[in-house]
């Protein structure tokens, strides 16, 4: 393979990896504070993309307004789901997981009933479709945009978790729920905050993902959601740097498989699942070897 083609793949890999990393943050933050695999995260992603599209195509709202509105809606939805489904089930592990499955299933099917399962074009700024040429290397603007936004989001998240009271409370809760309650942290508030952050990342991820692959249907969230989840597990679910690295590696790996082993392209979903299973079996803490609360008895 010549260098130019490789660089082309590399750029794509960086972009896809950043997308997976962004979405993976949503899983890992929730898992960190409540030990819940939020199966509905991919659907928050889908709702954000769908509502943006709907606002623009149905009501003619400017994209710059439709997306923030959709984001607000998804944040509200996440808070509502947390309050009405996850909180009542918080003490029951399997039930809360079934709750998450049913929320995910419900949102998918609700959108099928309301909007049919036909894929619709996603409105995105025209500039994102352009390609900058550096000699023979084509650099799609959307990829620069994705990486730029991802860096901003991650920096923001890092500052938030490291230096604000809420961030400290989140870290405390993920270490030890009971003791942090004794220290005067209200877990429900912190968990709600984690859901806000996770929905925010889902919405931003959705906007960028759908700008790159510009169609939405009620199942749009399923595949990126699963991939991001696998990324989160790879890095060590519950750890923010873990999600970043895991999501990035998975996205990059997916593109590199296409680049170096084109024959395996149709097997890449299988490969991601195999990676997921191997990690869970042999290194459940992921690359960063995160130890979760439940392990210490």
């Amino acid at each position, binding site marked *: 393979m010549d260098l130019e083609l490789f660089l082309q793949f590399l750029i794509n890999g960086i972009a896809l990896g950043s997308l997976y990393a962004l979405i993976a943050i949503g899983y890992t933050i929730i898992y960190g504070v409540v*030990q819940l695999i939020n199966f509905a995260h991919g659907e928050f992603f889908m709702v954000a993309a769908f509502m943006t599209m709907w606002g623009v195509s149905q009501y003619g709202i400017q994209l710059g307004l439709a997306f923030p509105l959709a984001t607000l809606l998804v944040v509200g939805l996440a808070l509502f789901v947390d309050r*009405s489904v996850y909180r009542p089930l918080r003490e029951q592990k399997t039930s809360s997981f079934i709750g998450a499955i049913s929320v995910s*299933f419900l949102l998918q099917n609700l959108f099928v009933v309301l909007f*049919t399962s036909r894929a619709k074009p996603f409105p995105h700024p025209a500039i994102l479709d352009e390609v900058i040429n550096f000699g023979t290397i084509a650099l799609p603007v959307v990829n620069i945009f994705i990486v730029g936004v991802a860096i901003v989001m991650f920096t923001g998240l890092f500052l938030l978790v490291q230096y604000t009271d809420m961030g400290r409370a989140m870290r405390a809760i993920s270490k030890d729920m009971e003791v942090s309650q004794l220290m005067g942290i209200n877990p429900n508030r912190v968990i709600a905050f984690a859901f806000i952050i996770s929905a925010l990342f889902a919405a931003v991820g959705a906007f960028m993902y759908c700008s790159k692959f510009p169609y939405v249907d009620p199942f749009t969230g399923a595949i990126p959601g699963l991939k991001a989840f696998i990324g989160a597990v790879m890095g060590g679910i519950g750890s923010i740097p873990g999600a970043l690295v895991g999501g990035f590696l998975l996205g990059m790996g997916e593109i590199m498989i296409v680049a170096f082993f084109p024959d395996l392209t149709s097997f890449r979903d299988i490969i991601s699942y195999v990676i997921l299973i191997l990690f869970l*079996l042999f290194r459940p803490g992921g690359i960063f070897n995160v130890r979760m609360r439940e392990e210490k008895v």
Partner: protein
Amino acid sequence: MKNLPSRNSYLTVVLGAIILLVAYIAESSFDPYIVRILNMWAIYVTLVVSFVLVYGVTGQFTLAHAGLAAIGAYTVSLLTLPPDAKMVSFLLQTPHPLIADAQWPLLPALLLGGVLAALVGFTIGAPALRLHGDYLLIVTFGFSEIIRLVLINLPSFTNGAMGLKGVPYLSGLVWTVGGAMLTVILTNRLINSSYGRALKCVREDEIAAEAVGVNLYRHKTLAFVFSSFFVGIAGGLYAQVLGTVDPNTFRPALTYAVMTMAILGGIRSLTGGVLAAGIYTMASELLRSVEEPRMIFGYDFPGLPGLRQLAFSVMLLLLILFAQRGLMGGNEFSWDWLRSRFKRKAPKKEGGEA
């Protein structure tokens, strides 16, 4: 426990014989649509009961049902499809020589489907059942999806995403109902054996179970492989009744459907599972008619595709939030309970062991 067959077991045998006789008569005299619904009911019973054994009784939450059913479905379809019918399905490539000329009778094909599903179940369960909680369910979910994706990517065996058409309907109500009854009876025997008590012990408290000498891992694997076998059989019958198989049938949605039925029935109750499977099948048919476009009073009603799944996901959510005991909780139907009803004694506490 008892060596002599009791009056209750005679009653069970008689009831079983009556049900089979009704199934036999129904096959030829009922409307094909009704027969199809009854077939689906019986298949769902098999699927739900095997889910109850693993989750309800042993306490291991797995999501591998769809993948295991796919193994049975594809085995049975490929072995029972006549060679020339295979050629009709396989348009883009020639079927693998291993299966191209195979034409088996139904029973050995079904059994092989069950055995293969049990083997795959063992392959999944052996590593996965060492894990707990979240890890276990994610690994089984992943395995189930891998099976489906492999089916798509092995076109010389499975005809890929297009699936197989024209699977001959060799089974019938007697098969599906018989399969369901066999599953219920054998699972019930297992639950009430010393193994079953060990399984419940594993569910209630793994550490205590280990302390009294229950080999956790062996028992979990036993329950999982036992249930996988029946899931494979159910998958095979499913393919028979549908007449077509394709990988899309075995998406996680199938597992969720089984899970919904099991929770509706009361996750620990076989009786509840049987009832819930029936309710689910009927409700599904009723809602199907709402989904389809039709004319109502001259008004062109467009139909609401997706409504069925929506209704079931709402039901699952409501059950898990407000009615986790489902219809039956942990209670089972038993002859003693029925008798106490008829004698109009002070009603005994419902349930007990069947």
